């Protein structure tokens, strides 16, 4: 039973992702069953707890490098990742999703906030302690070219974690590296090769093998397939899928491709301008998006059917600079919903703003107050940050 179900899922995945460039059977498409049985969320204490994470980059000017402002790349992000589960993090370029992943792993120092891993404050550790903890949290990068050191052999790249943590030496290390390469679908004889001899998909497999070397419980997948050909994408995603099932690894899956995230995640969080604007289980989010930004994002997913059934929501204006985010709800200058709502509201509750060269009337509340991430109608745990939607 289990087996056949798995096979079915796999088949499904292949079919869906092979056509992924003009993708896809859109999420809510009724012809498709849910790709995998949705696991219960919030079961037990989370593996990873991120609370109020802020990563601000100072803007320095002048001879004395005075700080004249902050780029708020990540501005108060909170979420949980359950053991063995996947949280998808989506958003357009520059919304801070990559920074979130790197800040969690302390590749970039956090400004404030906390990351609790297995009930332990990860940011409190230093030196040898921190090094030891790093064994449990790894990362897979987007760019398969720059993420592998061109001067090191594949064997040294994959084996480096073993050396750094004093786990294996000599022939033991060679054996382990061979096993890892085999596990990610590469020939063990590739260990003596250099990265530039491989294709993008193969390099990504090398990167995955390196991340697996320390048997981590949590891996940040930072757009692991967006630099790959569509046909290769499905191979890599299947590999990650298999690994998760086999080793119970939790993923933070960062992507801008909504179809990939839908296939891959148990829970999805949508980011806009450094904040999470909506979060729900996969099925719920795709079937019943609440935040106007999510709705717009979903409407932009290309469909294979040339006669569009749904209307595409085109947002006006540009993403504002994270150094000067709009007041109140960061989405208000582009939000179609608040404009609609303003038409029906009392004139006293509305205010006129200039955005992308046009004057529009929006709700005063949206301009003045930051909406909290709160429960909306629908599944428990479906939260969104919006003053307008219910």
């Amino acid at each position, binding site marked *: 039973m289990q087996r056949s179900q798995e096979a079915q899922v796999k088949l499904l995945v292949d079919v869906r992702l092979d056509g992924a460039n003009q993708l896809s059977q859109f999420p809510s498409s009724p012809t498709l069953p849910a790709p995998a049985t949705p696991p219960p969320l919030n079961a037990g204490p989370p593996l990873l707890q991120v609370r109020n994470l802020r990563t601000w980059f100072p803007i320095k000017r002048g001879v004395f490098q005075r700080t004249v402002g902050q780029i708020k790349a990540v501005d108060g992000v909170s979420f949980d990742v359950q053991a063995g589960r996947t949280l998808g993090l989506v958003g357009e370029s520059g919304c801070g999703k990559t920074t979130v992943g790197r800040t969690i792993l302390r590749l970039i120092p956090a400004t404030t906030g906390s990351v609790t891993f297995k009930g332990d404050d990860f940011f409190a550790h230093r030196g040898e302690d921190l090094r030891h903890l790093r064994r449990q949290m790894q990362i897979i990068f*987007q760019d398969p070219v720059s993420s592998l050191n061109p001067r090191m052999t594949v064997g040294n790249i994959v084996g480096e974690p073993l050396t750094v943590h004093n786990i294996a030496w000599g022939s033991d290390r060679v054996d382990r590296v061979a096993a890892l390469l085999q596990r990610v*679908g590469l020939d063990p004889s590739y260990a003596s090769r250099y990265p530039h001899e491989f294709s993008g998909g*193969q390099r990504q497999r090398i990167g995955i093998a390196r991340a697996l070397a320390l048997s981590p419980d949590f891996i940040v997948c930072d757009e692991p397939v967006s630099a790959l050909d569509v046909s290769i994408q499905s191979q890599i995603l299947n590999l990650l899928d298999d690994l998760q099932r086999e080793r119970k690894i939790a993923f933070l899956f960062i992507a801008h491709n909504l179809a990939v995230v839908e296939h891959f995640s148990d829970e999805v969080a949508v980011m806009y301008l450094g904040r999470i604007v909506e979060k729900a289980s996969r099925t719920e989010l795709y079937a019943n998006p609440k935040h106007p930004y999510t709705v717009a994002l979903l409407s932009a997913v290309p469909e294979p059917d040339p006669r569009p059934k749904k209307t595409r929501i085109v947002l006006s204006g540009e993403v504002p600079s994270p150094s000067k985010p709009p007041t109140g709800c960061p989405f208000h200058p582009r939000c179609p919903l608040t404009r609609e709502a303003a038409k029906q509201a009392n004139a006293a509750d509305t205010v006129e703003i200039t955005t992308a060269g046009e004057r529009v009337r929006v709700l005063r509340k949206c301009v003045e107050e930051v909406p909290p991430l709160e429960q909306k109608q629908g599944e428990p745990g479906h939260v969104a940050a919006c003053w307008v939607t219910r």
Partner: protein
Amino acid sequence: MSSAATPAAVDTVMGAVALSERPRSLWRDAMARLHTRKLNYVYASVLAIYALVAIIAFTPLLGKSVFDAQVGAQYAPPAFTGTVEQGTANEHSTIRPSLWLGTDIAGRSVLYKLLYGTRVALTVSLLASILSVVIGTVLGLLAGYYRGWVDALITWLYTTINSIPWILLMVALAYALKDREFKMFGQEFKLVGIPSIVMALGLTSWVGLCRLMRGEVLKHRERDYVAAAKAVGAGTSRIIFRHILPNTFHLVIIDFTLGIVSFVQAEVILSFLGLGVKDQPSWGVMIDDAKLELMRNVWWQFAGATAAIFGLSICLNFLGDALRDALDPRLRGVD
């Protein structure tokens, strides 16, 4: 589920690049690239001959007794043969290599002095190159990796040094260091000859490499492979020396090669100004001597020394350029 085998099978069918028979490291690629131009072998063999001569000059075969011996009359012009056992019954003419380039004011062989001068030239330039490359590399790595105040300090240091014309600074430092005595480890040292020249050259010429290294390191430290090493738990020294340094090492090699050329020339300048080596022949000292001899039509000492410098410089330059072409990723379109 044989998922381990499936992707591998897929991989061999699609997307895989054809692998050459042997792993191609970037160094091996560079060597192959050097190999395609046969002229590089000519440069390399000429340099090997220079090196061999320098090594021989460290043995008694070309020692003081050889280059200091009087072999003929004062300022004897170059000749292929010469008479031996003059004044005896056995006096006859024979091939005498010592006279091939004539003699100097004391009747010493110019050829032997020239050959011995290779030792001085190569010793000075190699040691100075090593010194400057080590300083430039370490400071460049530190400035680029740590940034912040470390970078500010190092940048300040090298821009200050760079604002003074190199030759002036080098000459000034050579003056300052000349015959200086200092105490270290309870012992008295006196900087004479080669050590003082090496320090004057090495301490003033690391700026170019340091600046290049800093720039490259700034670029590489943001690469994902560095982030991956951090995520894996690699320490700072491992990241700097095992990851970043090998990726910037081509700069070191090119700077080292081209540095030797300029140091050979600099040694001549210092010797010409009387700041060079003493009590042993060097190309610079020979050219310094020649400035008076030329008026008396004694051209061979000058010609010999310049030809030796020319041969060494041109081969090093060509080989250095070839190395740069072979190693620099930007010129290869890899980066």
